[in-house]
């Protein structure tokens, strides 16, 4: 798996930052329900695949993490998003076959989502 070194350090810093933030404000049951409902309506992955894995790669973050930061070129392209998805016990059934149709990381990436690594919170 090839990570861009800067992105790796950036994501690691983001994870530690998120963990640091979230210990101050632990998620309550309301936030958990909200996130669970939103996770049913959205996908945990974006449109890109991790090139070393061949699929979108779920990066495990602490379950107390709330936000992820994306970086991109251009004005107003650095955005904050909530991390709704969380690993759970329920077996999803199908869908483990290598999924086609995910974009490759472009030769000149312009957005952190294009690396195909997406945060998913670990279980409680």
């Amino acid at each position, binding site marked *: 798996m090839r990570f861009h070194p800067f992105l790796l350090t950036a994501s690691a810093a983001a994870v530690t930052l998120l963990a640091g933030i979230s210990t101050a404000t632990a998620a309550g049951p309301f936030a958990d329900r909200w996130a669970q409902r939103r996770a*049913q309506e959205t996908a*945990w992955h974006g449109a890109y695949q991790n090139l070393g894995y061949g699929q979108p790669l779920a990066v495990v973050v602490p379950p107390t993490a709330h936000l992820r930061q994306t970086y991109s070129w251009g004005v107003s392209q650095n955005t904050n998003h909530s991390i709704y998805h969380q690993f759970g016990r*329920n077996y999803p059934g199908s869908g*483990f076959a290598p*999924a086609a149709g995910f974009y490759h990381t472009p030769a000149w990436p312009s957005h952190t989502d294009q690396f195909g690594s997406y945060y998913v919170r*670990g279980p409680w």
Partner: protein
Amino acid sequence: MRFQLGLAAAAALFVGSAGLASAQGAGGYGASGYGGGEYIVDAQVISDEVVGESVGEAVAGSNNVGVAGRAYGRPDLFYNYYTQGNRNRVHAQMYLAPRPVPPNVGHTFTTYQPFMPHEMLYKHTDRYHNYYDGGRGMNRTKARYYYPPVRQAASNFYWNMLRIPR
């Protein structure tokens, strides 16, 4: 090896002195002439196959002679975690192989739950139940996960006091 030998001798003694009821303790699974998964309780043969492979079917075995079977806990040795939701085009498991490899290669297999890496992600307390002896015994383990206080204090001191703000 010596320990095993001593254990076998003790078991043999136990059978010889106590008779039928002790065959359960010594025999375990089918060591006393019965099929696998059967043992003797109160001189009646009942089946041990009550709890299914993790599905939890409450059906007694075929050799049941009028005694209600007991449900023994027999959880999976390891169970993975998966992404949830209906909108996912592809699902993900939490425990892959040590590094992400194609899904048909394998995944990590952690058999002791308190040491699973995802428990180290945040401060909390958990209690684990572990079955042994085919589900007839259970022990409890309470684990507390916390930040190492000295390192955390040093880190706080650095980030709050020493670090040059920029």
